[in-house]
């Protein structure tokens, strides 16, 4: 089990906290973040650029790639202040670049890929989306069929992806395709960088049950990318490359979201005067404290080594807590209350939370993973 790592003196951390708090107070956007379309793109890029110029982007990224090489403890303090200031949700169009594509390129990319892409991601010049799921490959990602035919020094992409958030406003996509037609499952897959403005790409937004059309279908008709520029981690090694990304997703990348949820549950507890709902909110408050304890301990432990399998427990815990919290919020405030209205109210959160136990592997798959990889239980007969 991970343990809490010493980072630096408490005084230094508190000075850092004071700096973060002051900067956020002076720079936080005055308008609420748009949830979709070109306005969303402009807002996210502008906010990312401001954080970058203020020195608050890529805190734990290596300084050679434009980050600040700070500690995980400082990253946590930044996110605590970020949530406290009600800064724009990090679950926006910059999420994939900052938390999936960027870290994957840091881990597996070529020097040219790093030099070209990482500064753009950090400084708010490029939006990334993810192209993993397909209509026939959801929780069972390894069954993916989107094809990449190798022709000389190019790959020709043919097929379809789905649930690609912000693909309609993205500059690049992290794309998983099958480059070896004879292969099956985890072999013969390639992870590549696909510019979204190439000929042959069609993007069709899908409206979600929560309102915005941020999910997209993406169709590829003879889309050509150069192997040297596009492939990360080697042709045919895509599964391994993707797992590096998913490992990160289940570790420190979610800290901001976890801390944000804790903050929102604390607000529910403060607002709760209804004795009937109070016991539920009390349990949520305890669960929120546990989420914090687990995610801090896990993030700090992963600083000094590879994240352990506990990440899958924390991810599922977060997903189900987010659902229960928003469910209780609708009961507490009631439909028609101000707290439920608007793009960032609890009604949106309540509906959006239904995706938490589906996206990135359903809760059922997560429980299989915990049973098999964490607890060592046998796989069932197929």
């Amino acid at each position, binding site marked *: 089990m991970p343990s809490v790592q010493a980072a630096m003196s408490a005084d230094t951390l508190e000075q850092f906290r004071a700096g973060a708090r002051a900067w956020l107070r002076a720079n936080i956007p005055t308008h609420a973040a748009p949830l979709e379309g070109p306005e969303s793109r402009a807002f996210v890029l502008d906010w990312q650029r401001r954080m970058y110029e203020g020195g608050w982007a890529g805190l734990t990224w290596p300084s050679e790639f434009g980050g600040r090489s700070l500690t995980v403890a400082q990253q946590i303090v930044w996110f605590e202040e970020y949530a406290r200031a009600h800064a724009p949700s990090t679950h926006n169009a910059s999420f994939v670049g900052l938390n999936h594509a960027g870290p994957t390129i840091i881990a597996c990319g070529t020097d040219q890929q790093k030099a070209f892409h990482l500064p753009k991601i950090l400084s708010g010049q490029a939006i990334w989306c993810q192209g993993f799921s397909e209509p026939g490959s959801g929780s069972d990602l390894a069954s993916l069929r989107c094809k990449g035919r190798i022709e000389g020094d190019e790959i020709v992409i043919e097929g379809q992806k789905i649930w690609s958030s912000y693909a309609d406003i993205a500059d690049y996509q992290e794309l998983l395709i099958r480059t070896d037609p004879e292969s099956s499952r985890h072999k013969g897959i390639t992870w590549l960088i696909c510019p979204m403005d190439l000929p042959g790409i069609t993007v069709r937004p899908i409206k979600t049950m929560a309102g915005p059309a941020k999910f997209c279908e993406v169709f590829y008709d003879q889309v050509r990318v150069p192997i040297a520029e596009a492939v990360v981690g080697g042709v045919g090694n895509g599964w391994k490359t993707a797992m590096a990304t998913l490992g990160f997703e289940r570790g420190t990348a979610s800290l901001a979201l976890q801390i944000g949820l804790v903050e929102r549950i604390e607000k529910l507890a403060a607002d709760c005067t209804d004795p009937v709902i109070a016991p539920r909110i009390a349990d949520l408050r*305890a669960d929120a*404290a546990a989420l914090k*304890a*687990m995610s*801090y301990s896990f993030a700090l432990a992963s600083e000094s080594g590879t994240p352990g399998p506990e990440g899958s427990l924390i991810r599922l815990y977060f997903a189900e807590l987010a659902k229960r919290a928003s469910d209780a919020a609708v009961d507490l405030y009631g439909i028609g209350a101000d707290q439920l209205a608007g793009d960032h109210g609890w009604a949106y959160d309540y509906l959006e939370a239904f995706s938490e136990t589906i996206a990135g592997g359903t809760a059922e798959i997560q429980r*299989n993973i*915990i*049973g098999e990889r964490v*607890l060592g239980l*046998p796989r069932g007969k197929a």
Partner: protein
Amino acid sequence: MTIFRDLTETRELVDSFTRPAETLLPVSRLRDDPAGEGARWGSLAELGWLAIGLPEDAGGVGLSAVEEALAAQTFGRHLISTDYPAAVIAAHALVRRGEAGLAGEIAAGARRAHLAFRQRNGADLVAIDATDGAWLVVLTEQGVDILENGTATLHDAEHWGRPVSRIAAAEPMWSLTDPELAQRGRLLVAAMLAGIAAEARSRAVEYAQVREQFGQPIGAFQAVKHHCANMAIAAYAAQELVTFAAVSLAEDADDAAHLVHAALNLALRAARDNAGLNIQVHGGMGFSEECDAHLFLKAARLLDAAVGGIGTVRGALMRAA
């Protein structure tokens, strides 16, 4: 303010000095000898287990609430008698009253104490393992009451894994108002409950790996696997939060009360849920007395009662800043 502390060495230290629990406190001992720890108590005291967090000048080991909570998780896994938290809390209270000599007697195992709580009708006291006339320790909202135990009558020796006695309400011999001590006592109980949740998980997983039905280990079936995953999540959350709260309490941080109440709330639920699921995963065997699964459920319910029940704990958490 969030406190970040490296606990690697602390965990190693606590693991090393609590290791004798494997041989000294096998859960199977409770089949034949359900009351107290009997003659084992002297051995526990000799190992320093009753005095982990007591100051050295009171005969203690001089460690903090963190080591105390980590050790209590291990003792919880072994279903140590509730005499354990009673002794630790009484010794702390005595030190705070300036009675280091008496505290030392408790820590040395020479003077005994049992855990008690107010029955929900408010009239009587209920005591656990109180088979002799030793002191009774009652955790109150803001501290501790210490009572004499003259007139306890056995109420139920059948249902809770340990003898439960009733005593007509009496004035305490003395009371101590000390919110930090009240938190420390609750943290100790939370740690034992987290230990119960963890042990119930481990036993269920172990059984699911070896018990075969329909030609494969039952753990291969998703319905059973998902029970085990839920138990793993509950135990992990409880253990991490207990430790997080212990660090906060040891550092006297301003969120300590909030985190201790949260840890107790979570550990209460984790312990009863995991104990119940462990019985379920064991199937027919789990319902038999011969299988120890029921002991974890019963121990969890006694600790639950000792802190006033889940409703009280939820109320306290909602009032915490």
